[in-house]
């Protein structure tokens, strides 16, 4: 087994999950409901890039920028026309509404673009060879974007006034209002950044793989797992969560468990005990079960009032 390749694969998986999870974690902590439409926004963003880049023939980078901004605005509209009215209805009502919205977006996309996958106007090449492992340019971009996002979010939340206001709003909305923080503005900003960032994540995943209407549907549960493993509302939690899931999925399959099962030489039950690939999705779920049983509020324990 090429361990460097497994390592690289792990990092890419983590970065792809993390890109969307960071936005979801932040919006989750402020909006306080599980937004199932978050990941569908990612897919919509990815399709918009297809529209601009392939159908209309725009420059790729420009397409990404415009699409991300449009989706950020879509986020504002979603809040204004749909989710704002759930401010006092607890967390379950908006969750089911977002489920309805997700169904609508997903199938709206299929009605427009069909079920077949689409790809961007981009030449796929064999990856760059680094220490015996292959990594492609889009993957490098994904890693760069994920790391920049991590640093960017950190700086936003820690060193800017509006970022601190976001953390304050996440911690205690009533008190934030008592501080004359315009929490409505904060929430709008969170929708804008969160949805725009989801779109960016979706676009990059689409760039690295392909775009189809079920891109989000197949990602939504793993991403919720990542967010909750890490701890809702913590950007660092989302990063740690995605690293855990990414590494567990790749190393979980690569590892030969024979030494463990033979109790390191005490038994001789065979020399290969691999985890069947069919159980790859189970790795994420096992991680959720184990981690939440040990730490019921995720790895980064947030002190929320």
């Amino acid at each position, binding site marked *: 087994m090429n361990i460097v390749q497994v390592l690289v694969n792990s990092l890419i998986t983590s970065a792809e999950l993390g890109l969307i999870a960071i936005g979801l974690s932040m919006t989750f902590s402020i909006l306080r409901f*599980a937004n199932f439409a978050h990941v569908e926004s990612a897919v919509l963003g990815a399709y918009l890039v297809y529209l601009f880049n392939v159908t209309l023939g725009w420059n790729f980078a420009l397409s990404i920028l415009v699409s991300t901004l449009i989706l950020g605005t879509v986020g504002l509209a979603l809040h204004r026309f749909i989710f704002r009215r*759930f401010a006092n209805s607890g967390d379950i*009502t908006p969750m*089911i509404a977002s*489920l309805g919205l997700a169904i609508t977006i997903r199938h709206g996309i299929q009605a427009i673009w*069909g079920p077949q996958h689409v790809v961007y106007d981009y030449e796929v090449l064999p990856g760059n060879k680094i220490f015996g492992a292959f990594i492609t340019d889009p993957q490098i971009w994904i890693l760069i974007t994920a790391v920049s996002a991590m640093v960017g979010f950190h700086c936003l939340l820690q060193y800017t006034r509006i970022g601190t206001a976001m953390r304050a709003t996440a911690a205690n909305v009533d008190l934030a209002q008592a501080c004359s923080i315009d929490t409505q503005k904060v929430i709008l900003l969170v929708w804008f950044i969160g949805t725009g960032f989801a779109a960016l994540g979706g676009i990059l995943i689409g760039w690295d793989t392909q775009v189809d209407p079920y891109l989000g549907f197949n990602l939504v549960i793993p991403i919720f797992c990542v967010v909750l493993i890490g701890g809702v509302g913590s950007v660092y939690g989302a990063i740690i969560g995605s690293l855990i899931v990414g590494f567990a999925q790749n190393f979980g399959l690569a590892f030969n468990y024979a030494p463990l099962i033979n109790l390191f030489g005490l038994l001789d039950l065979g020399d290969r005990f691999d985890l*069947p690939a069919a159980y790859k999705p189970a790795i994420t779920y096992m991680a*959720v079960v184990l981690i939440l049983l040990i730490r019921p509020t995720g790895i980064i324990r947030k002190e929320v009032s």
Partner: protein
Amino acid sequence: MEQLIGFGIYLVTVTCIFAMLAMSLDLQVGACGLMNFGQVVFMMVGAYATAIAANAGINPYACIVISMAVAALLGVVMSLTVKNMGGTYWGILSLSMAELIRLVFLNERWLADGANGLSVLITIPYFSLTVVVSTLFVILILRVIWLSPFGRVIRMIREGDRLPLALGKNVLLFKLETMAIGGAIGGLGGSFYALLNSYISPDDGLPIETFIIWAMVVVGGRGNLLGVVAGTVFIQILFVGSRFLTHIVDIDAGVLAPLRFVLIGLLIMGVMMFRPQGLIPERKRVYRI
């Protein structure tokens, strides 16, 4: 005409089965605040228990009882993971447990023929009638539970552990009992599901089914049995009724199919926007302690 009645009977039967699953979820969510995102696992395990037992030649009625027992036991096991976990955290944990169980059924061909699933070649006489009567019985039982002291305590737990703990209630025990009852009802629904379709496969236990059951509960009205039944009927009508679009709208079936879901999604969202507490909301009562 006879066939239309047959379709009506089928719809009533399948709606009753899902009403049971929805009421079981409502007992956990609407009453006890347990955000079970893995509800479908009760149905799947119940259906598989019936299928496996039936293939072993066990009496159909005994199969139903076995299904209820197995699902109730699963409910107990799941409740042991709740502890003081927050709503969505346990939601994802329960979803993970449900998916792990489904993956075992999917991947272990020796257990239940893997992805191909199991046929259930037994029937019980007056099946649809049995399902309807069982549903009414479940409604009655849940109504009694709701009004009982037990029901009052679990509704108190829904609002947070603090008050019931302060009153000296063993919160975990109550959650365990709730999950066991919810599991048994879900297992009953699952057993009927297997008998209705004569078949069960891992695809019947996909997470999407859980979310549809959730929509039934929330659209109908959490914490109100009548509301939950109404929600089940509503969602069922959405999914089955929208099939008749084919007869009204003359566009390509490949485009109509996703548009049908656009409509379903919009209607679910619309009900939530304009009736956030559901079609028939819970009547809040004030209790003096």
